[in-house]
């Protein structure tokens, strides 16, 4: 008999305690961010898709060693370069990133010994077309510097 009533009362008390907590929460300010109207600032180390880094002249720092291409687990990087007449260094002619396959692991940046690629801070990437994610990074670099 005693257990019966004590269970009822302790049960009721636990319910009241719970309700008090949610009532307190009710009057606390909101913690959510109104996404399209407000946005978060990406942290400095945010890993977006990669982007080529330019040197002082606006040319890509890339020396076409192909380490990133080899390191990429998903094979989303294809790059080409050619040796112009009379030059010792190769020059980058195309750097394509297939972002549909990229898993943002960062192996390419890790593997680059010349500091030629970095992460972009872009995250508002949405499209209904697959082709929008075949990035031509060289072109993007030129666009930024023109």
């Amino acid at each position, binding site marked *: 008999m005693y257990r019966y009533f004590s269970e*009822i009362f302790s049960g009721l008390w636990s319910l009241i305690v719970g*309700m008090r*907590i*949610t009532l307190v929460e*009710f009057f606390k300010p*909101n*913690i*959510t961010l109104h996404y399209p109207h407000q946005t978060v600032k990406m942290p400095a180390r945010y890993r977006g898709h990669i982007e080529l880094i330019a040197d002082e002249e606006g040319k890509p720092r890339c020396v076409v060693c192909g380490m990133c291409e080899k390191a990429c687990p998903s094979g989303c990087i294809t790059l080409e370069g050619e040796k112009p007449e009379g030059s010792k260094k190769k020059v980058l002619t195309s750097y394509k990133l297939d972002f549909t396959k990229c898993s943002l692991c960062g192996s390419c940046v890790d593997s680059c010994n010349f500091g030629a690629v970095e992460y972009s801070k872009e995250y508002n990437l949405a499209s209904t077309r697959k082709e929008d994610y075949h990035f031509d990074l060289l072109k993007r670099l030129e666009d930024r510097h023109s």
Partner: protein
Amino acid sequence: MTLTFLNIFIAVVIAIAFVAANAAYLVWCERKGAGFIQRRPGPTENGLWGLLQPPVDGIKLMTKQLMIPGGVDKIVFIIAPVLAMFPTIISFVTIPFSDQIVAHNMNIGLLMIFVFGSMSAMALLMAGWSSRNKFAMISSVRAVSQAVAYEIPMLVTTITVVMIAGSMDLMEIVHKQGGGFWHWNIWPLQNGLFNVLMPFSFLIFFICSLAETNRAPFDLGEAESELVAGYHTEYSSMGFGLFFMGEYANIVIGACLTTILFLGGWDCPFGLFPGVWWFLLKIYFLIFTFIWIRWTFPRTTIYSLLNLSWKVLIPISLFNLLLTAGLLKVF
């Protein structure tokens, strides 16, 4: 005679409007309440504070295709949502909002509400049965056993109140509680009876109305994580909309009844500003409590629900009935 019919007709139209507006805006309240409890703003995009959300939702529901899945029992399938909505609207006819505002007062008003209230369980059963969906089926069986289990303590507590008032007329019950805060049925002091169990009676009635309206924590019928959407899994468009409105209309009825039976109806606590607003204030406070409870507790299971009903609520309410009868005899 014709005047009475006209009266009732107008009352029903007003009741439908009241129910529809309430149902629509209670959804908004629910979402806002849930939002604030969870520290987010709830609907905000449509209109000021998202106030246009309910009409927008209504239009969306109405423009959707009414799907009738193959293999269902068509007649029952179509009748069920209507049956979920219709009795609740009828019940509003006899609910007194204040001394003057009542569509048609009856001396058996309470009985009528209970009769129509039981019909909603039938609607759920019909919906679940006709849907040809195992989840819906389980859900409707649950809903019925729950409704039966909770009807009993609810009726027993109601009888207690009826005995105190000596009438089944809702007006009369409110009048008996007139005279201020301490005269309401919820307090042990009312009518010179020192019945200490009355607050518990109120609690029992409140719990039962939660269970009757299939609200959390007793929303076993539409236990989302178990039975997907329960009895209205197969319903789309306004079929679903009617169930939804019926649920909220039931909540309003439950709150109205609790107010009338225990919180003194439109009676103002300390003689301040008497009027219909006291009634509305009380029912909306109760509705807020419904929402508050829903967003606080997890769901019970069918056996703990039945255990609660048969082992706790029914014995206590029966004991209170006996005690009240004894006290009435003594005083």
